[in-house]
């Protein structure tokens, strides 16, 4: 495949596939450490304080200390919990999050698996997370966990619908579901990005409101799917203690933790792919070599991770019924209308 330089270098053998699979894993681990530090530091920045300062210079190796700590914590399985499911859930949740990384590109020369249904696939594997959360929450045998798990599951499957509508709209605009196809359809300057109507004549600017609506629908929906504020009801501290991971400790908790951060990157990467031109440089061919493309992609995705962290420390939390109201009565009609508008644009183009 031309979109995976490792396969080109090493040929089509098992080692090439292993290396291809290992790179996202390393990326997830490094990214999670950065994101954990980012969360602490951004929280501190928003809240007018310093944040961790005593672990390395300005506390930058704080996440390492946390991982070291979590590794040696006692691993508690509550006596009344359902042990097989309780112990399986963290692995399933991490599998679900990590599976999405298979199709997330880094640059035009490296997409671990450039399958034809890329965005659709990301969307599908996220349902593993739902099941795993239900599994963990139920197996904990704790009412807070069950409440958190049920809330989480209902929230995630509800918000799948508006987000999938915006994915369909983008597919209609780009005529493909593959990640590389969608990104290539936005190549060139930044006004070719899907957020600004994709490539095409000036008539596309008439449809920008629809795309903006879709963008907002997708962004809000992705916040809900990643359980981030203002939709962090499943783990809302003030109501249900820790939500579905109340009873988890040590590395099993760390896996939930990692999966949450991995999910944040996945949804940010999806926004980047679908609306912001993916790895394309905003300035045409300027700084558009494969290495720079990796920079652009990760920078765009990380900026959305940043926005998610920022929102977390700014907004209060919504209530369960308000959450459903937003989903079914606001976002779904808006997404439908926009879908029709975008389809019109697709026809015109």
């Amino acid at each position, binding site marked *: 495949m031309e979109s995976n330089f490792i396969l080109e270098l090493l040929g089509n053998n098992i080692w090439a596939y292993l290396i291809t699979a290992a790179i996202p894993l390393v990326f997830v681990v490094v990214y999670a450490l950065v994101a954990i530090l980012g969360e602490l530091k951004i929280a501190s920045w928003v809240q007018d304080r310093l944040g961790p300062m005593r672990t390395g210079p300005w506390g930058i190796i704080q996440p390492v200390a946390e991982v070291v700590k979590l590794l040696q914590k006692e691993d508690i399985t509550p006596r009344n919990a*359902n042990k097989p499911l309780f112990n*399986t859930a963290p692995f399933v949740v991490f599998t679900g999050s990590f599976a999405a990384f298979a199709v997330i590109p880094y640059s035009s020369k490296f997409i671990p698996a450039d399958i034809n249904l890329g965005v659709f696939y990301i969307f*599908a594997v996220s349902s*593993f997370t*739902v099941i795993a959360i239900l599994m963990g929450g139920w197996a904990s045998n704790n009412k807070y966990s069950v409440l958190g798990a049920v809330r989480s599951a209902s929230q995630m499957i509800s918000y799948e619908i508006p987000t999938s509508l915006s994915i369909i709209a983008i597919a209609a605009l780009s005529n493909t579901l593959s990640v590389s196809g969608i990104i290539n359809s936005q190549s060139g300057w930044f006004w070719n990005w899907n957020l600004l109507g994709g490539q095409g004549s000036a008539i596309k600017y008439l449809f920008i409101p629809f795309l903006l609506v879709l963008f907002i629908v997708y962004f809000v929906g992705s916040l809900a799917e990643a359980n981030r504020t203002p939709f962090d009801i499943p783990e809302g501290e003030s109501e249900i203690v820790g939500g579905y991971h109340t009873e988890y400790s040590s590395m099993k908790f760390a896996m939930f933790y990692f999966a949450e951060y991995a999910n944040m990157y996945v949804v940010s990467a999806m926004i980047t792919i679908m609306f912001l031109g993916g790895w394309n440089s905003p300035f045409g061919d300027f700084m558009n070599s494969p290495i720079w493309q990796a920079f652009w992609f990760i920078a765009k995705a990380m900026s959305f991770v940043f926005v998610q962290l920022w929102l977390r420390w700014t907004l209060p939390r919504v209530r369960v019924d308000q959450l459903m109201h937003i989903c079914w009565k606001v976002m779904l009609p808006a997404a439908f209308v926009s879908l029709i508008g975008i389809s019109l644009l697709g026809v015109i183009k």
Partner: protein
Amino acid sequence: MNIIEIVFYVFALIIIVSAMGVVFSHKLMYSAFSLLFTFFGVAGIYVLLNADFLAVVQIMIYVGGILVLIIFGIMLTTKVTDVESISGSTGKLIYLSSAIVSAILFLVLVYMFNTSNWNVYTTPYRETTLDMLGNALLTKYVLTFFMAAILLLVAFIGAAFIAKKGK
């Protein structure tokens, strides 16, 4: 043994073991979560059969939709705080007789499959079936497609109505 075969046997094993888990497990929740692996394995089999769209749809609808619904159903109809929700099985006689019946069924099926002269001819590898599916759905099967859409709509309205009527 090439990689396709390894993958087939791995997925087949996953499917069979987890399906047995579904059927033989005495705890409802175990059955439900075993079903997750069955669906996952079937999705893998679809990928082997070059049905990539179906594989993704399988995961999305079965895992993300149907399984969640089933788990909700279990949670609503059993005591959730009670971890040991028994699925309830019939007596030994029925157990034995149904085992025999299904074994016979299985043997008959295998015999049929092996003796039938299937008209098998393979075509070269095709990367995606998405465009073919789309074309077929909107041309040859467009009526069925709309019927399915209406069926879904009616089913969901009906489901909401039935569930609401209780009490």
